[in-house]
């Protein structure tokens, strides 16, 4: 019998950790992994709220989030590979073609 608010608090902590990782890290792959952490924090919040509301609709949403995250990972990693082929680097500061 665990209070659902513990899970909700954990999801907030995970989301903030994901944001920290996104801003501290410099290479594209780890920044991308930080995005996945934030998505998972959102999933945890959805499932906690589904439990609190007693309805499975939140779990269906999480199912969709996971599939969209898989699609996003495939395209994002393809883009990172493409950038690496062109620039020979995956550091975020090296991507400044639009900076002028």
């Amino acid at each position, binding site marked *: *019998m*665990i209070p*659902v*608010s*513990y*899970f*909700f*608090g*954990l999801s*907030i902590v*995970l*989301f*903030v*950790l994901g944001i*920290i*990782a996104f*801003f*501290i*890290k*410099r*290479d594209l*792959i780890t920044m*991308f*992994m930080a995005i*996945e*952490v934030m998505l*998972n924090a959102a*999933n*945890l919040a959805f*499932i*906690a*709220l589904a*439990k*609190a509301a*007693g*309805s*499975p609709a939140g*779990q*269906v949403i*999480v*199912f*969709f989030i*996971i*599939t*969209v*995250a*898989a*699609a*996003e*990972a*495939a*395209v994002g*990693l*393809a*883009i*990172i*590979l*493409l950038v690496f082929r062109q620039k020979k680097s*995956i*550091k975020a500061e090296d991507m400044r073609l639009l900076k002028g």
Partner: protein
Amino acid sequence: MGIFLFSLLAILCVGGVLGLILSRNQAHSALFLVLAFASLGGLFGLLDAPFIAAVQIIIYAGAIMVLFIFVIMMINLEQGIAPERKRWTLGLSAVLAVFLLIELGLAVHGTLGALGRTGGESIGDPKELGRLLFTDYLYPFEITSVLIIAALVGAIVLVKKKEKE
């Protein structure tokens, strides 16, 4: 028993993400993330979502992270990973993160008490989820399948090497 399991999984999960932040090696970061996702799957199980827990472990900790590790192996940086940003930006980001945490906590503070406890009747029955997916959520389901095909074709077209003419 439940609270012990929750604390163990929560510590593993937060520790995994901290390992992702602190580790300099991308492959180690990915493995820490696998740990975090697997323990998150256990947390989903505690919240009466056995199907989502299985999906989390198979798709996230399995498929997506294998994809990440493949790309890390293909990129294989010779000069190693760049050092972190300057010291004062690290301090500033820590302070801002604490502020964000407090702000999010205050935002949901009022609702936290009304959430209740785990236990009681089960809601995450795979049969019920499948019925919902093919009735109430049929359109999102089909749109997701189109999205996955588009992502698959897009990823292949993007990475394919141009043939020399």
